[in-house]
C-alpha cells in the first residue's frame, strides 16, 4: 500500500472534527476550550494506531501529529516536576526525539500513551536524580534551589484576584509544598506526581514505571507519610 494513502483520512477526519467544533463554538452551545480539547483528545485515541504505524514507516508528518496529541500533557508534567519552563522544554525535546528514533521498535504491547509516558518519566527521573546529587554535593547552593520555583512566582495565580496578601500566602504555601516534595526520593516523587497531580490511576502508574500496582501503592503510602511529616505544622 502506498504510504501516502493513509495520510488522507487523517486530514479528512481532523478537518471535519475541527469544522464541527467551530460550528459549536459559533452557536455557543458548548464551552469552546473544553470541547476543542475533547475533540483533540478523542482524535488522539482514534488515530494513534494508524499514526504510529505511519510514523514507523518513516512518515514525519504522522509523528508530528502524534506529538501534538501528547505534548501538552508532557509539558505539564515536566513543568510541575522541574518547576522550570526551560527544563521542561529540554525534557520535551529529548523525550520526543527519543520516541522518534525508537518508534519503529514500538510493538503495541502497551498503549502508545503508556509508552510515551514511560520515556518522559524516565527522563524526569534522571533529571530528579541529577538534581538530588547536585543538592547533596552542595547543600547550601543557592542558585539551583532559588531557580526552582521561579515559574510559580512569575505566573500570576488567577484565583487570588486582587488580593495581594492572599496571593503571597498562596505562594508561600506552594513553596513549602514544593520543598516538601523535593525531599521525596525521585521514585516517590514520580508516583506521587502522577497520581496526585496528574490523576493517573495506580495501575497505569505501575505500567508507566515498569512496576506493579502494589509497588506503586506502597510508594504512594510512603510519599504521603513523608509529606505529612514535612508539612505537619500546616495541617
Amino acid at each position, binding site marked *: 500500500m502506498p504510504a501516502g494513502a493513509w495520510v488522507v483520512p487523517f486530514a479528512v477526519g481532523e478537518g471535519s472534527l475541527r469544522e464541527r467544533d467551530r460550528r459549536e463554538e459559533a452557536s455557543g452551545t458548548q464551552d469552546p476550550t473544553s470541547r476543542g480539547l475533547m475533540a483533540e483528545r478523542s482524535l488522539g485515541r482514534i488515530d494513534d494506531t494508524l499514526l504510529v504505524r505511519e510514523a514507523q514507516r518513516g512518515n514525519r508528518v504522522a509523528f508530528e501529529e502524534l506529538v501534538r496529541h501528547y505534548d*501538552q500533557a508532557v*509539558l505539564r508534567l515536566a513543568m510541575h516536576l522541574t518547576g522550570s519552563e526551560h527544563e521542561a522544554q529540554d525534557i520535551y*525535546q529529548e523525550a520526543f526525539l527519543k520516541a522518534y528514533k525508537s518508534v519503529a521498535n514500538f*510493538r503495541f504491547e502497551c498503549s502508545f500513551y503508556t509508552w510515551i509516558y514511560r520515556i518522559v518519566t524516565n527522563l524526569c527521573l534522571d533529571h530528579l536524580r541529577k538534581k538530588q546529587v547536585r543538592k547533596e554535593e552542595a547543600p547550601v547552593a543557592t542558585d539551583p534551589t532559588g531557580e526552582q520555583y521561579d515559574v510559580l512566582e512569575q505566573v500570576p*495565580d488567577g484565583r487570588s484576584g486582587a488580593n495581594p496578601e492572599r496571593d503571597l500566602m498562596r505562594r508561600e504555601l506552594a513553596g513549602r509544598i514544593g520543598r516538601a516534595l523535593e525531599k521525596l526520593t525521585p521514585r516517590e516523587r514520580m508516583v506521587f506526581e502522577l497520581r*496526585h497531580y496528574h490523576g493517573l490511576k495506580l495501575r*497505569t502508574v505501575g505500567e508507566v514505571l515498569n512496576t506493579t500496582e502494589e509497588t506503586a501503592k506502597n510508594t504512594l503510602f510512603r510519599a504521603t507519610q513523608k509529606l505529612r511529616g514535612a508539612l505537619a505544622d500546616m495541617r
Partner: protein
Amino acid sequence: MKCEWVKENILLYVYNELPDDARYELEQHLARCSDCTAELKSARKFNALLSELPVEEPSPNLVAASRMRLQEALETTQQGGFWQRLVFDPGAWLRQVRFAPALAAAIFIVGFACGIGATYKVVTSGGGVSSVTSGAASHPAESSVTGIQSISQEPGSNQVTIKYDTVSTQEAQGSLNDERIQQLLLFAARNNYNSGVRMDSVDLLTQQPNDTHVREALIGALRYDSNPGVRLKALDGLGAYVKSDPRVRDALLEALMSDSNPGVRTEALHLLEPVRADSSVRAVLQRLAEKDQNQYIKEQARTLLSQLPEFD
C-alpha cells in the same frame, strides 16, 4: 483491628482506588466510627492542602516554541528503526509466528465478511457520547455495529474506549456453481445470527451436497444449529447420503439420539431406515425402543426393529 485496616486504606479511599467491596466495607465502618471519620477528614484536608501547589497548563507560547524546536530537530534526525528493520530479528520473527493463527483467523473473517474489522472508538465525556469517528475515516457512515468487543476506561480521566465491530453491507451475485457464492453460503450456514438467512443458505446448499465441503457444512448445521428448522433442512439435504457416507449416518444417529426437537428426531429416524441393519443403527434403535421418552419414536423404533431379520 478494624480501625487499623481502615487507617491503612483511607488513603486509597481518598484517591478512589479501593475496589467496590472494600469501599463499601470502609464506608460502613465510617458510619459507626467517629475516630476513623476524623481520620478521613484529616486525609481529605491534607489532600486538598497539597493541591494548593497548582498544576499550570503550559502556555500556548511555550507549546508553540517547543513544537518548533522539535520540528527543526526532527528534520535532521534519522529514525533508528530503518536499518534495524532490514536486519533479521529472530525475536520479532518468533512474535509474528506466535500470532500467526490469530492473523490467519483475522484474514479469514475479513475475507468472508467483506467489511468486518474496522475498529471504532467512541469517546464519551461526562456520560454522554461526544464524538464518534471511524478508525479509518474513509469508511462509509452507513456501517452498522455488530458487536461490542471491549469497554475500558482510560485511567485518571472520564474517557471511555469502546471497541466494536462494524459491517458494511455488500452484495454478491452469481450462479450456485460460482465458488465465491458457495463460500459465502457456507459462511452464512455456519456463522449467521439470523436463522432465516441460515435456513436459506442451508436450503441452497442442499442442492449440491456432492461437494464434501457442503456436506460438512450441512452436518455442522445439523449438529450445532440452534434453529430446528435449519436442522431439518440440513437433514433433508443429507438424507440421500446416509448409505454411502458413514459420517452422514453417524450425524443422523446423533440427531436421532440427542436432538432436542422431536420433529428432527422423527425425520432422522425415517432417513435412517435404509441403513437400519447396520450394527450401530440397530444398537441405537434398541435403546430407543427400550427407554425413549417419546412414545412415537419408541414405537417407530420397535416397528423398524421388528422388520429386521433376527440374529442369533
